[in-house]
């Protein structure tokens, strides 16, 4: 069939790029994870040392646990914020012009360099930063709050700051697709605002929530730089483990960690994808 061939030709560039820059690298990582390394180079061999070390080290477990902790907390917070913001935009703001305007307002910071957005928290949260000075001058506290910066708090704050938008957009999209008459029908049937939210809007936003969840989960799980900057290098997640190994030229060990991380992420995503058909939701 020539239609098939046309389709293949059209899909070819995409397939080519993905094969070359996604599949091949992953295979490479998988292969290298069995290689050995010296101080300065890697050499092909087949050994399970990297995995052995990975699975025998208590650090691996702490760090994976820590990664999940960050993911879960960030997910919950971004979900709550994202849902509320999307709800406000979709249902409380009535004119389309305002909806679009306010939505864009939310997306603008997204176009600024992530690193700059991240480090700009530091002068704000520091011991003598804006937040502490303000609180002290208001008399709320006497001593500067230490946990504002270089703590789990600041890490999660930065995650939330960076990634909430990824939750807002798909939920907003789902909400905008809810037929307004469903809300009216619910009200007509005596549902209170809260009941409408609980019984109509929430179930119907599920796909948006899922897509947002996929984004936030993968972004947080794969992060390595936010944790470093915002915890003052005091905390670690899997991404940092990998990037540390990379910077010390321990590619095989980095690869082994990467393979485990990749599997974890893919399992999580596969579970999420069972709950939503992305192609239908676009």
């Amino acid at each position, binding site marked *: 069939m020539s239609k098939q061939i046309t389709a293949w030709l059209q899909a070819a560039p995409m397939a080519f790029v993905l094969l070359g820059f996604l599949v091949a690298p992953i295979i490479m990582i998988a292969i290298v994870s069995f290689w050995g390394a010296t101080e300065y180079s890697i050499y092909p061999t087949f050994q399970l040392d990297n995995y052995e070390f990975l699975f025998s080290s208590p650090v691996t477990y702490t760090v994976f646990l820590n990664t999940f902790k960050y993911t879960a907390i960030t997910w919950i917070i971004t979900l709550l914020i994202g849902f509320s913001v999307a709800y406000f935009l979709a249902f409380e703001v009535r004119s389309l012009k305002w909806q679009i305007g306010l939505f864009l307002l939310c997306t603008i910071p997204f176009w600024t360099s992530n690193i700059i957005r991240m480090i700009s928290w530091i002068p704000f949260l520091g011991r003598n930063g804006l937040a502490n000075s303000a609180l002290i001058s208001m008399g709320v506290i006497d001593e500067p709050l230490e946990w504002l910066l270089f703590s789990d708090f600041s890490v999660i704050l930065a995650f939330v700051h960076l990634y909430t938008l990824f939750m807002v957009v798909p939920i907003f999209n789902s909400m905008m697709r809810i037929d307004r008459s469903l809300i*009216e029908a619910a009200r007509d*049937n*005596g549902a209170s605002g809260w009941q409408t939210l609980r019984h109509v809007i929430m179930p119907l936003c599920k796909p948006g929530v899922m897509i947002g969840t996929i984004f936030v989960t993968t972004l947080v799980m794969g992060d390595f730089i936010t944790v470093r900057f915002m915890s003052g290098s005091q905390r670690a997640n899997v991404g940092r483990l990998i990037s540390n190994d990379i910077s010390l030229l321990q590619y095989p060990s980095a690869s082994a960690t990467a393979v485990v991380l990749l599997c974890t992420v893919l399992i999580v995503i596969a579970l999420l994808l069972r709950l939503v058909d992305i192609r239908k939701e676009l």
Partner: protein
Amino acid sequence: MTINTDLELIALTKRYGGTVAVDAIAHHFKTGVYACLLGPSGCGKSSTLRMIAGHESVSDGSVVLGGRDISHLAPAKRGTAMMFQNYALFPHLSVRDNVAFSLRMAGEDKPTRDKRAMEMLELVEMTALADRIPDQLSGGQQQRVALARALITRPQVLLLDEPLSALDPFLRIRMRAELKRLQRELGISFIHVTHGQDEALALADEIIVMNNAKIEQAGPAREVFNSPKTAFVARFMGGHNVLQMPQGHIALRSDQMRITDAQTGRMEGQVTAIEYQGAHVALTAQVAGGQEITALLPDAQFFDNPSEPGQTIGIDWEDRVAHPVLA
């Protein structure tokens, strides 16, 4: 029912910013009436209905049901229920749960809810499909579910916004018979918005014709069809010719026109179109002054003496059928 559930609209007004969608209309719907709001697109029908339902705030005037001003109550507190144009069934809930929704909101327990919902579904003959979700239903079935869901709240007035427009012509005719039957059985008022005059005629005890945010004419269906007050109503109700005569406008029912030989009728005209309609043939002719007149002839009569486009014919009518209307 002896309790008063009359619905009164008093100088009801809706403004959207600068535009007046509904302009101080007043009407009294008697208990148990089947009323149709009829009018062209954008005339304010939906706005009126939605103000009654409570889904749109009242800009001015009030809505009184059973002597109680309900203008500012929550939709569910009004004693009205609404059936939406596209039915607005909750896509994530089964038919049964859709119907039971209001009971669930009111905190009824599940057995009670299900029992009442099944009763309602029986009324609309949908018990067999109670476990399906709306996507798995045809348009007509969806409509019945929507009806059941609206009726389970035991409203005194049921509001329907173009309930039949999403259906195909066949289903439309079947469902309108069902609506009518149901209304008669329940004895409550139905207020039904439509822009099809055939639908309004078929269903309504009372037709309210709206135009430009105002009520143009209201009355029993026959009265509105037979004695349109204005040229607009005559044209909109269809089946009428509106002619500009020296003494003013008159409306003439097409089926009361007679075709004669040229030069023997009141008017002379040239046939411009012939449209076969099954039992009838609509013959359109252009008369002096460029006005068009349509005559609806029984098919047998037409085909006994067929005319062709271009032919000159005479058109005649009896004096008693001419009906003066306002321009």
